[in-house]
């Protein structure tokens, strides 16, 4: 039993790390990885998803519906942001740093002023289960599977639907896509909203496990950026191996040497991976 417990506990920790990295990264992978927009307001989409989930769940909606509402609201906010601001920055992507930074500043502070410094959170659902000396949270054990499901759904979306084809075409060569009759502005808008919605989903899924404060998104930004960049330009081929590898290192270091080693180990691994694979990990799998 003990060997099984040890193996399972390591897998659980790995899954935990993997899920956090993947879910943080997905929204940014679409917006930054695919569209090239450096979205420093990523954390705020996460916060939006989390807050809406908590508020609707408290109002009586069952948790899964509340989470969907959170993600959809984040997607709508993303669409509005794209229309008002991001749309004008596609030919000067570096300026998206300042613009999204400014949006992040405005959003955090406005939430603080109007919603107060925090709101009461939710309990983690599904209880716990025991294995040997350890007890684990069922919800957290399921999170990596949610992450993989979302990844699979994204794959289906991008490779099996018309929208997917249009989106990939537009991102590969917008001029050509326009010539072929695609409404590129509409596609950009939808893709940005998708990215925002994914970020909102991450916030919604993690809402029952962390504090609900206006600055809660900030803890998702660095994991998101490092995972996306380590993964490389191809969203779907990149995020999975990147999150897997980084998650492995982080959970391993934390288990062996403590949380400080885990944090620093993650960052140093990013540096080494990029040094060894300058185009990111996805490039390894990309035969095109």
């Amino acid at each position, binding site marked *: 039993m003990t060997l099984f417990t040890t193996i399972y506990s390591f897998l659980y920790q790995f899954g935990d790390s993997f899920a956090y990295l993947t879910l943080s990264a997905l929204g940014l992978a679409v917006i930054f990885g695919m569209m090239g927009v450096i979205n420093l307001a990523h954390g705020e989409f996460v916060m939006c998803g989390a807050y809406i989930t908590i508020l609707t769940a408290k109002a009586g909606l069952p948790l899964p519906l509340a989470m969907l509402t959170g993600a959809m609201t984040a997607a709508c906010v993303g669409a509005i942001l794209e229309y008002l601001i991001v749309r004008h920055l596609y030919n000067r992507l570096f300026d998206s740093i300042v613009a999204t930074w400014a949006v992040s500043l405005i959003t955090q502070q406005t939430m603080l002023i109007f919603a107060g410094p925090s709101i*009461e959170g939710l309990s983690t659902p599904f209880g716990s289960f025991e294995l040997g000396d350890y007890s684990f949270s069922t919800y957290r054990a399921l999170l990596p599977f949610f992450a993989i499901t979302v990844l699979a759904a994204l794959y289906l979306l991008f490779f099996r639907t018309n929208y997917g084809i249009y989106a990939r075409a537009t991102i590969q060569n917008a001029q050509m896509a326009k010539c072929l009759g695609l409404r590129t502005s509409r596609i950009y808008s939808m893709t940005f909203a998708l990215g925002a919605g994914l970020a909102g989903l991450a916030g919604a899924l993690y809402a029952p496990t962390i504090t609900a404060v206006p600055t809660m998104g900030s803890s998702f930004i660095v994991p998101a950026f490092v995972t996306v960049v380590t993964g490389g330009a191809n969203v779907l081929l990149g995020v999975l191996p990147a999150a897997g590898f980084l998650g492995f290192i982080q959970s391993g270091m934390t288990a062996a040497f403590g949380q400080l080693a885990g*944090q620093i180990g993650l960052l140093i691994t990013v540096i080494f991976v990029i040094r060894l694979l300058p185009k990111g990990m996805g490039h390894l799998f990309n035969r095109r």
Partner: protein
Amino acid sequence: MNKIRRIAIACALTLPVSLAVMAADPVKLGLLEDQSGNFSLAVIPKIHATELAIEEINAKGGIMGRPIKLIHYDTQSDNTKFQEFARRLIQVDKPDVIFGAFSSASREAIRPIMDKAKQLYFYNNQYEGGVCDSNVFVTGAVPEQQFSTLVPWLMEKYGKRVYTIAADYNFGQISAEWVRKIVKENGGTMVGEEFIPLSVNQFGQTIQNIQKVKPDFVMTLLVGNLQSAYFEQQAAANLNLPMGSSIQVGQAYEHKRFKPPALKNMYVTPNYIEEVDSPASNDFKKRFRAKFPNEPYISQEAANAYDAVYIYKAAVEKAKSTDMVKVRKALEGGGICTDGPQGKVCMDPKSHHMSHTIYLAHVQDDHSIKFPKVWNDIQPYWLGQAGCNLAAKADYSQYTPSSPPKK
């Protein structure tokens, strides 16, 4: 009729006093506190408490007939803003006293500025202890007050095997050092110690480590919004161990922000929290909520910030002047006390720190609070014992148990 007449008479009586107060040269109180940013959650009650105290004092005639004028700059939880505005206060506004700072880093950022200008400065927050500085007076609680009461009590109730998880910086490390010391003095064992960087909010491995060694209780010295995620996560994993802390609940009111039973069986030793049910506390709460009806929580630091204003007032009255050197001498002469929400507390002349009433708060399953024990008049004894005597010898340092003052 009677009521209206009474109100009219009250107004008529206070009006000349108010007018006189407004006419006199104000006492300037500079405030450097974070109204926005990461620390705003814990700091906003402090700002409100300061405003309340000033309003009350001004309504009764101010300090020696002079009203207090509050000059507050929002430092946005940013150390550089602390430095910029400390300088601005000193060079432009020239206050008679400066209050402020939440994190130790921001206090340490402005302490050199206060010392250079010989500016009287009050730090109204609990912290890791050890500041022995002639210009600085601390109304916050220190580890010897909070741990020497809490840890032996917990060891007696639950057992002698202790696990500490602490934020990985000065406050967490020094607090953990104190826990280690007291556990050893009481014949216990530290079965584990984990230091968590401030940016961490995922505690899966930590929870597992705790379960592996099966301690009797866990000392949690976690700081900031990110680290407080621990409580929900350990409840979700059903860790089910009693917890002790000097900092949880009293400062960032986790028991109000997390759904029960995340903080169940948490024992904290603040010098005040709003659940305290005494005449002084209830009166304070009533006045506080009258001015700030939407205050999420009246915390330990709110009480300290409130008491600080009254301590300053008492010192100025004893010195019969707002001259900073004279006020400092008055405080170092001893006997400067105030009767606030936690009862009577006094400023210790040797260490410039305050005595406190320590309440043992036990968080129940539904996050209500019971107080199994109260310790009165706990002195900040460590600095004095270690060799800091500001009444006799000037100093401008911060010491720790592992690097005490040179004798």
